[in-house]
């Protein structure tokens, strides 16, 4: 792997990733088609989503061949969104309980 701005890869790599994305999308569609429920459903949805996202960022967007300085600058800041998500989830639980208590 060279770390240059002019990256040259076999076109077959893109075709393989493309095929893989097709298969993974079909699998996530089948999760809904077969009405899988509860934790199995959520685990499959999140797992397939993350694999697809990784493939797109790493190969299609060439992140796998960028320098670590750029990779860190782009991929670390979004982790703060996990904090926002956690805070909003806690808040949402509280709001839901309050609504259930006062409205119903």
């Amino acid at each position, binding site marked *: 792997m060279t*770390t*240059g*701005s*002019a*990256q*040259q*890869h076999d*076109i077959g790599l*893109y*075709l393989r*990733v*493309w095929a893989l*994305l*097709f298969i993974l*999308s079909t699998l*996530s*569609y089948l*999760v*809904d*088609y077969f*009405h899988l429920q509860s934790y199995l459903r*959520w685990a499959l*949805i*999140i797992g*397939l*989503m993350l694999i*697809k*996202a990784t493939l*797109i*960022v790493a*190969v*299609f*967007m*060439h992140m796998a061949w*960028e*320098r*670590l*300085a*750029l990779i*860190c*600058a*782009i991929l670390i*800041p*979004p982790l703060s*969104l996990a904090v*926002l*998500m956690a805070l*909003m*989830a806690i*808040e*949402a*639980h509280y*709001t*839901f309980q309050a*609504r*259930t208590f006062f*409205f*119903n």
Partner: protein
Amino acid sequence: MNAPDYASPDNVPIPAIGWRGLLADWGSDGQAFRVSWGKAMMWIFLLSDTFVFSCFLIGYMTVRMTTTMAWPEPSEVFSLTIGGVQLPLLLIAIMTFALISSSGTMAMAVNFAYRRARIPAAALMFTTAALGTAFVGMQAFEWSKLIAEGVRPWTNPMGAPQFGSAFFMITGFHGLHVSAGVVYLLTVAVRLLRGHYESRSNYQIVEIAGLYWHFVDLVWVFIFALFYLW
């Protein structure tokens, strides 16, 4: 100014990989990102866009968790009836495949651009734009169908009223990105064919446009999973 990519101004070699590379890039009073400014700025723009879409999706999570009414079943809301058979999420699945295909053609366009093969690169970019247009068209169809069924940002006949606002906001903002991307790709492809970029040593503009396009596909992966499948 034909210095190699990874040499400092005084030609001291810089460690190429790993943590030593990171320290060399950030620890000296120099340029941190050893890519063209256009590519660095596109990445930073995409980072900011990540925050915009994440805030929408987290907002959607919050309203879905807090509502005391039943959330409309996306599997049924977005089903199509063809030949008397109800197929769940069929249109959404087709839209997903159209967008993934457009990402594939875009990746190949970038690959041809690296080799300075401008005719195939432009042709693949036109294909990408066509698939993107098809995606937006199907989304317009989906919006019309839901609006005809009485879905509004403040109410809908299926359940929790927050469904409409989350749906129109998230898919609308994404559709806007796809539409802007189609215009962007067409502009770059036409300029590529006209020889506008011949004076440069490479066609990196194609790669930068490609980053934007792949990001649009990336966002759809998250919307598909969290809004349509959840």
